[in-house]
């Protein structure tokens, strides 16, 4: 079977979601819109980003475990480092920056 064409839209969703609100944040200085209630990781993934950090030797990292135990997906939120993007729901006005400087 060929992969589905086009992104997965709420209209296609078998669980019939109600229309959801939006949340407006800033990612690396750029305004980004997400769905209300999304985590920062959700917003980044929905925007097509798979990686936003580098490991100690420079390998790209994004979400791995999705449940907050692997600590790969770290971002800086409103100036605070070491925030797991998969655990933190986005709030209006959040400033998200990429944590690129924690290499030894």
């Amino acid at each position, binding site marked *: 079977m060929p992969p589905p064409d086009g992104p*997965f839209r709420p209209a296609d969703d*078998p*669980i*019939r*979601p109600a229309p959801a609100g939006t949340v407006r944040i800033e990612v690396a200085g750029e305004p980004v819109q997400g769905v209300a*209630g999304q985590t920062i990781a959700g917003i980044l993934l929905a925007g097509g980003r798979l990686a936003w950090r580098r490991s100690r030797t420079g390998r790209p990292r994004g979400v791995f*475990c999705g449940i*907050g135990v692997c600590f790969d997906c770290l971002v800086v939120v409103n100036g605070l480092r*070491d925030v797991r993007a998969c655990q933190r*729901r986005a709030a209006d006005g959040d400033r998200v920056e990429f944590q690129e400087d924690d290499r030894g």
Partner: protein
Amino acid sequence: MAEPHQVPVLVIGGGPAGMAAARAARRGGRRVVLVEASDDLGGQYWRHLPAERPAAREDLLHHGWHWFRRMRDDLLRDPGCDVVLGGHVWSVDRRDGRPPLVHVLVGAPDGAGRLPRAYEPTALVLATGAHERTLPFPGWDLPGVFTAGAAQALAKGERIAVGRRVLVAGSGPFLLPVASSLVRTGALVAGVLEAAGPGQLARGWGSRPWRLLAAQAKAGELAGYVRDLAAYRIPYRTAAAVVAAHGTDRVEAVTVARLTPDWRPVPGSERRIVVDAVCAGHGFVPRTELAIAAGCALRADGSVRVDDGQRSSVPGVLIAGELTGIGGVDLAVAEGLVAGSVAAGRTPPPAAVRGRAVFREFAARLAAAHAIRPGWQSWVDDRTVVCRCEDVTAGELRSVAALTGSRGLRSLKLTTRAALGLCQGRTCGRSMEEILGPAGLLDAGRTAHRPLAIPLRLGELAASTVVGEDVR
């Protein structure tokens, strides 16, 4: 920085086991505090959309959804049950012969300035669940390679598919619901690969397949997943595994191979498959750090030892759910009901005790059928990263172990840096220990010891407890 709250029954973990325990303790007439780190109850099993995103048929993504919703609503409405959401237990102070003092920060995950709270429970139920174990393979640290649980969390919690053409691989029945969630989230599942071979599966599940056990619910559940495999034309293969992922900035293809009974790749059986995401999971690891810090005795497999009342080796500390052994939601609920009843000083309901026995049988067969076999190490080459946090490769682990000759994980962690990153060995610990196994480790299991159960900000730590007059 207040005095500790005295609590008759404190339950840590708001997943199936914790919810059941809280419910049973309430039925037993005790006041309960239920601490859950996330912003709603349900744990991983019932990970769901946030309140901002209601959906008419969310039940299509879950089993037992209506039971969960009823239980959740009851607990949240019950004035005798204080549900602390956003409650992060960061440490416990072990006490001799009784439950520990429990230290909690209430607030956003990885926040700063969260509210500190300490609890002194008369009875403590630990129901902290499990996380996935993913065996390393070359390229597993490429973006686009996720755990199977990540696929579930993103599908159920965000309605995001981890990729458009996804391969699900690993071992254990959990792979099936992952595939089912993915296809309901707009992804194509290129295949489900189970590493265990037919012989291991047959011997493990036994001559009476579990559809003939009293676990009728399990049979129905399995049938649903099998239907999905057929309806979505998803190939399901046993004795097969992803043995490498390829790509520059993200995964673009994988190599899959047939496996021998002890999980070695069969030379010549490798095939390349184009995918844009891989979900890999090889079973679960119980999250035992609080139980260990409280002084609870463990079994050889790393689970927490309990008696027939779910009592651990520490008086007043009970354990329910995956902590006592990976067994899935039904066993977790049964154990939770027993633990909560015993915590409240009541006799456990006979139905829960019976259910526990049935699903314990299921859990035992699960462990046998899908147990990781040592041949996996042969698909790991020297350059395969084992510790993702610190980028320590298998080659480095082996060579430093050989150079120092140490038989101690304490030393080996500090000379290799493996398990010293933020995840503190959750992701790599067991794999690291198995790779170093030939050294004859004298402190095996040490990677599961974490006095700090989660990271916390130094400012929060400083503000967290009453620093007594005996400190100078």
